[in-house]
């Protein structure tokens, strides 16, 4: 399998994640799109690892997964705390840090 195909696929998935962050206003969906971008990068790391026969990149994928899991736990807890106070997850409403 040519490496270029995997590069193109993960670039497309990363672009979809960026599009989702720009397109949606629900903060939970934006977190999900960040997960999609992390997965695109993971796929690229695994593809490079397979093509260079080097397991080091696959260990990096582990650490990305660990950080992603921690990020989701804290992010969703913050969102629930915000929802309790404001009754919304609309990011256009969540600009109190600006005022």
């Amino acid at each position, binding site marked *: *399998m040519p490496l270029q195909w995997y*590069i193109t696929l993960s670039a497309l998935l990363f672009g979809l994640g960026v*599009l989702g962050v*720009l397109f949606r206003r629900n903060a939970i969906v934006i977190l999900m799109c960040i997960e999609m971008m992390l*997965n695109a990068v993971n796929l690229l790391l695994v593809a490079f690892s397979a093509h260079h026969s080097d*397991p080091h990149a696959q260990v990096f994928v*582990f650490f990305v997964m660990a950080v992603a899991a921690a990020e989701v736990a804290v992010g969703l807890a913050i969102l629930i705390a915000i929802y309790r106070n404001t009754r919304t997850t609309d990011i256009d409403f969540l600009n109190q840090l600006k005022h």
Partner: protein
Amino acid sequence: MTTTEILFFILTGIAFFSGAMVVMSRNPVYSVLYLITMFFAIAGHYILLNAQFLAVVHIIVYAGAIMVLFLFVIMMLNLNKETEPHNPPWVKIAAVVAGGMMMATLVGALKQASGPLTKTNYDTTIGTVERLGNVLFSDFLIPFELSSALFLAAMVGAVMLGKKNIH
């Protein structure tokens, strides 16, 4: 066309379609379900790339744990189609243009990438638990231990944030 290439295109189609549906779905619950489909397609790609252990860990961690957390939070907050905020049309068009240009730039830039892109001494055992464990516990021992501290901090932080305010 070999079987591997057919499988690659099927999995790519599933991953891209469900990724697009995550962005397009009106209902956040459908977004989560499409994201789970995308994760399974990516796990299939990992198996094609001889990363069997990572494929299993990917399904357990992402499709099993993280997505359940998302689904649980969405259902707890009772977010559905009616409460979903919508952008005005010009913002949507601007987002599609910006995201599409980002996508085109990435594909174009990475297609120009030079270097040893051909396979050299291809080894099919790099994805096994034994090889990965050897690397993880020799070269990456300190990051591995630090990630446990990160998890502990994240867990304590999530519990602190999730508690009701004490006044």
